């Protein structure tokens, strides 16, 4: 009887120990930290130019002969008698305060019919992933949007886009755009883009006319997907 008591006691102790230690096992962990990159590009000082500047880089007034462009081919030429009547001012803005220039203001002063100006600028990929130059939206103040991509560059590249900016059904400004659509910029790389503007005969006198061009870049690996998208104004 005493032996049975000892045996039961021993069994109970073993059972208690077994309940505490259970079986042998080991956990492996995979910690995932995804640090995303950034898609970002910018304009830069001293990489924006015009054929007819108002000011030098130091802000001094500058006298520079106007350029004119007459129909039908609108080839640029020095204005008759090399006059300096109008001029083009360029200003860069950081509208979102993130430290890089995201907006280029082009202001043509004292414009007149067939005054023409070329604006050249360079865009830089300052993000951490490659980008592709996707499209432009030419946005009028009345809400009209003209979209151009690699698939339909001819109008804006060769024929010119005639813009009625004051709603009188008469074109006021002719715009041509040297595109670079589809070009890829690796981080740190840049591309040159140019724009040609001609004030047309029907432009009203003593008037401020405005339009905006949204220049969009997209992550390089979804460029083909982006080409299937249309519309949308904000990025």
């Amino acid at each position, binding site marked *: 009887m005493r032996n049975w008591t000892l045996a039961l006691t021993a069994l109970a102790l073993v059972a208690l120990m077994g309940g505490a230690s259970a079986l042998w096992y080991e956990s492996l962990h995979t910690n995932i930290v995804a640090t995303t990159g950034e*898609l*970002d*590009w*910018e*304009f830069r000082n001293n990489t924006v130019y015009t054929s007819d500047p108002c000011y030098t880089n130091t802000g001094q007034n500058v006298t520079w002969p*106007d350029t*004119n462009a007459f129909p039908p081919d609108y080839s640029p030429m020095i*204005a*008759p*008698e090399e*006059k300096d*009547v*109008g001029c083009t001012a360029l200003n860069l803005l950081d*509208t979102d305060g993130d430290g890089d220039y*995201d*907006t*280029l*203001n*082009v*202001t*043509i*002063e*004292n*414009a*007149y*019919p*067939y005054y023409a100006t070329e*604006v050249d*600028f360079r*865009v830089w990929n300052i*993000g951490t*992933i490659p*980008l592709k130059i996707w499209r432009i939206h030419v946005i009028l103040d009345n809400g009209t949007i003209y979209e151009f991509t690699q698939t339909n560059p001819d109008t804006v590249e060769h024929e010119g886009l005639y813009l009625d*900016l004051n709603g009188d059904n008469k074109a006021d*400004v002719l715009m041509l755009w040297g595109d670079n659509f589809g070009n890829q910029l690796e981080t740190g790389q840049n591309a040159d883009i140019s*724009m040609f*503007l001609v*004030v047309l005969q029907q*432009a*009203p*006198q*003593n*008037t*401020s*006319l*405005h*339009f*905006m*061009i*949204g*220049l*969009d*870049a*997209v*992550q390089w690996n*979804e460029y083909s*997907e*982006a080409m299937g*998208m249309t519309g949308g104004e904000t*990025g």
Partner: protein
Amino acid sequence: MRAVAPIFMLAVLALGMIGGAAALWWERLNVNVNVHTGELDAALSVEGSGDNEVQLAQQAGEQNPEVKNVSDVQCTLSEDGNSVIMTITNAYPGITYYCDINLENTGTIPFKVYSVSLTGNVTSVMTSDSGLVNGTIVEGLQLHPGDSVVDRLSITLTNDAQENHQYTGILNIVVEQWNEYPTAPPS
């Protein structure tokens, strides 16, 4: 494995929903274009007026030449500033009446004079040396903003002029932007 498959499918579904909402990454740069157009504007003004009645009387040895001052010429500017109105009263042949007219570029871009013309029935009774006689306001004349020039509009009637008759005329000066001269402006 049975537990992993539903979790994986849920994760794929969640990613798909995120992708649908955020779409791809893209960024916009803006180019704002502002075109401030200038103005083509010209204005006339009157610098003086007169006639040569008294002068002719003096040359003729009149004792009191002032008594020969029987006709009159007035030159006034129209309300819109675009016209000079020359009014001659009691006019008669042989007397020269004149207005000194100032043409000024009051706009912001240069202009050139496209045409100068005098029309109306007064032209049928004017001597050949009438019209703008100083030769300063002529076709092709260019004025830059702020510049001005004076010319003399002179009217001398011939003996063909009828008595107690009213003759009228309009001097038209058309200016146009300098860089399209001599393209004809729209009619």
